[in-house]
């Protein structure tokens, strides 16, 4: 499992999911960086079986991620598992 990658523009503005132009500076010069740590702000369990969190990254973006065993308010890291973001204990 790799760390989730987010898009960062030439001026250091981070977004997720990717954009064509940076919403802040209009840059089209993107590279990818590891998402870094964040906080699982809200967590719900769907009847289909998945526990899902809204994760506010310290770098700015908010990511919707699978969050098995994660409690609201806890610090998490984000991995990329088969393309789906997954919150894990750091």
């Amino acid at each position, binding site marked *: 499992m790799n760390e989730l990658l987010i898009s960062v523009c030439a001026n250091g503005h981070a977004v997720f*999911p990717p954009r064509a132009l940076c*919403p802040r500076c209009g840059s089209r010069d993107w590279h990818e960086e590891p998402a870094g740590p964040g906080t699982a702000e809200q967590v*719900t*369990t*769907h009847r*289909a079986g*998945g526990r899902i969190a809204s994760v506010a990254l310290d770098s700015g973006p*908010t990511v919707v991620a699978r969050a098995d065993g994660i409690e609201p308010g806890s610090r998490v890291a984000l991995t990329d598992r088969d393309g789906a973001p997954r919150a894990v204990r750091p």
Partner: protein
Amino acid sequence: MTSAVIAGAAESPYTRHPDPVTTTTESLLADAFVRALASAGIDRAAVDGLGVTSFTLAPDHAIDLAWRLGVRVRWLMDDANGGAAGINMLQHAVRAIEAGDASTIVLLAGDRLLRDEFAALVDGYNRATQAYLAPLPIDGPNTDFALLTQRHMGATGLTRADYGRIPVAQRRWAAGNPLAVYREPLTLEEYLAAPIVAEPLCRYDCVPVVSGADALVVTSADRAPGIRVRAIRTSYNPDGQEGDGLHTGLAEVDLWDAADAAPGDIDLAWVYDDYPAMVLVQLADLGFGDERRLLERIDAGWPLNTSGGQLSAGQAGAAGGMHGLVEVVRQLRGEGQVVNARLALVTGYGMVLYRYGACAAAVVLEG
């Protein structure tokens, strides 16, 4: 300048389990088309404009529909703005009538959604959903709005028993709408005991998926009597999906100045109810005041979502953004339960890009 009116409105009845052989998206749109023209007393030959929104008409477009409905038109519109598409199309149609680009426009919205078709729709909603949401163990937008409702609870202090007052009140209105798919009474106790879909949302917080279609006839006031459009305002992509979803952008558009009216002047409202929290979010954005006072008014029978809303009448895909317009026209014409209503508010909301809807629209109508 010619002034535009809504001269006709109709709904092709919503059904939970349509016959997949005899009921198609096209047959539903055609049925709404015929019914709306009949309600306006206008002949098909007079139609020279057509607009459509549908998730399931593809690969056909508005021009295919014009061909198949047998109308020769000089104004044509395909709209893909989901729950905001009905009001968005109305905004364009009003300007087209006023400018003389067309004289009589029919606007259509509808979908046939069998179980597999709905699953394909929500998983393939846009590229962000395909890539980052569809692989998660969820089915559609319920999880996003469970997380949003938790944020709304944190911001307002409301509880599940508060949100439940909205579907319970709307079910009382649904009893007076023969086209609503759920009309039997719903109690708050039943709401609180219902199966959870995704905390804190239960079954009654989520719209029943149905098949159906809605239609409006927009023409000039000198051709037919009708409902006047006081003002339309829209807000698209207000925050780049980087906020909390508890603001639609409708607070920053000058709807009330443009309509020369205030929230207190509104006799009835239809507010897009994909989830109860969003009803309160939109009403707060539009200046209707404190959530607890609003819930007291809703309990006391304030005419809100008098069709039963989508929560009781059903959500027929893209028709959800036109259903409220059709319902409010019915009420303003004196054909519903609300007596002596003159000014009405209708809102639309939708297109969940990643975490919440990015499209919001509002219109003030005058009967």
